[in-house]
C-alpha cells in the first residue's frame, strides 16, 4: 500500500475510535471502573493465575535462577499474546492510519521530516524492520534526503519498534510499576523526538564545521 493512496481516502470514524479505545485499553485508565467500561482494561482482561496453597501462584515462593526465570517468563506469555492480539485488531481497523493522519502535519515542526514519512514513522513504532525498509524506499524515491534519512534513523534507532516491544517485553514489568502503565511509553516517545532533534542539531553543526575547514 503506497502512502499517497492512504492519505487521499478519508478514514472511517471507526479507525479513530479503534485508536482511542486501544490507547485507553492499555493505559489502565479504566481499571476498576464499573460495568462495561471496567472490562476495557488490559490488566483486568489478562486476569490472574489461580492460587496454590492459599497464597502463591505456580511461581511459588523463594525460587531463583534459570528455572525460576523460565516459570516467570511462562507466566508472561498470556499477557503478551493478548496485547499483540489487540494491537493486530486495532491495526486491522486502521487505527495506525488514523494515528498517521493525526501525525502528518506534526512531522515537519516536530522532527524536520516531510509528511510523506508519516506512514514509515508509524510503521517503525510497530516494526523496526518495516520502518527501516520504508525509510530506504523513501530515500530511493527521492522523498527523503540523505540528511533527513539520517535524522529519521535517530528516531527509529532509540527504542526500536517502541509500541510492539513495550507491549510485549515491557508487559513483563507492568506488575512492578508504581506509575500508570503507559506513562513510561510516553516518556520513551518524548525522548525519541528529543533525540531526533539532537541529531538534527549535530548534523547542522557537523556540516558548518566541514564548510569552515
Amino acid at each position, binding site marked *: 500500500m503506497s502512502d499517497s493512496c492512504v492519505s487521499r481516502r478519508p478514514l472511517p470514524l471507526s479507525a479513530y475510535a479503534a485508536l482511542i479505545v486501544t490507547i485507553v485499553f492499555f493505559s489502565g485508565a479504566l481499571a476498576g471502573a464499573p460495568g462495561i467500561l471496567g472490562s476495557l482494561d488490559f490488566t483486568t482482561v489478562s486476569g490472574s493465575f489461580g492460587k496454590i496453597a492459599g497464597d502463591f501462584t505456580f511461581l511459588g515462593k523463594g*525460587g*531463583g*535462577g*534459570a528455572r*525460576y*526465570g*523460565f516459570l516467570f*517468563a*511462562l507466566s508472561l*506469555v498470556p499477557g*503478551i*499474546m493478548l*496485547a*499483540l*492480539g*489487540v*494491537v*493486530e*485488531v486495532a*491495526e*486491522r481497523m486502521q487505527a495506525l492510519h488514523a494515528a498517521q493522519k493525526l501525525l502528518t502535519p506534526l512531522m515537519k515542526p516536530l522532527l524536520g521530516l516531510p509528511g510523506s514519512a508519516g506512514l514509515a514513522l508509524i510503521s517503525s513504532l510497530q516494526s*523496526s*524492520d518495516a520502518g*527501516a*525498509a520504508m*525509510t*530506504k524506499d523513501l*530515500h530511493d524515491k527521492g522523498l527523503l534526503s540523505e540528511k533527513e*534519512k*539520517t535524522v*529519521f*534513523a*535517530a528516531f527509529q*534507532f*532509540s*527504542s*526500536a519498534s517502541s509500541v510492539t*516491544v*513495550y507491549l*510485549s*517485553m*515491557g508487559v*513483563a*514489568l507492568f506488575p*512492578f*510499576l*508504581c*506509575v500508570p502503565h503507559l506513562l*513510561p*511509553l510516553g*516518556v*520513551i516517545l*518524548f*525522548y*525519541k523526538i*528529543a*533525540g531526533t532533534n*539532537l*541529531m538534527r542539531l*549535530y548534523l547542522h553543526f557537523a556540516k558548518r564545521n566541514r564548510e569552515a575547514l
Partner: protein
Amino acid sequence: MPGNLYSAFVEGTVKGWKVATQNMLPNVVIAFALITMLQTSGLLDGLGRVCAPVMAAFGLPGEAVTVLISTWFSAGGGVGAAAGLYSHGILNSAHVSILMPAIFLMGAQIQYAGRILGVAGINPRHYPVLYGIGILNAALAMLTMRFFV
C-alpha cells in the same frame, strides 16, 4: 467484518506466542541465570558498590547497572534482569519504574544497528552519534522518571 477482526486477533496472539517463546523467554531465562551467577559469586555486590555513586544520580542502587548492561545487548535481557533483581528484593517498584523507559531507549543497540541502520543505508560515520543519542535518551529518561515515582 467481525470474522475478519477475529482472525486478526488470532493472528496477533500467534505473533505474541512467537515473540514470547522465541525472543522474550530465552532472554529472561539467561538474565535470571546471569543474575544468580553474579549474586552467588559476589560479583553483583562488588559491581553494585562500584557503580553506586553513578546510579545514585538516577535514584537507583548500584546493582541496577546490570539491567542497563543487559538491555544494551537485548531488551528482553534488560527486562529479565530487572525482574530478577526485583524478585531478589534488590530493586523496588520505584526503581523498576525509573528503569522502564531506559530499558527500551538504549535496548539492543548492536542488533538494531544491523536491522535499522544497515537496512536504511545510514553512513557508518554517524553510528557513534546514533549510539550516543540512544544512551543519552536513556539517561535523561531515568532522570525524568524520578519525578513521577
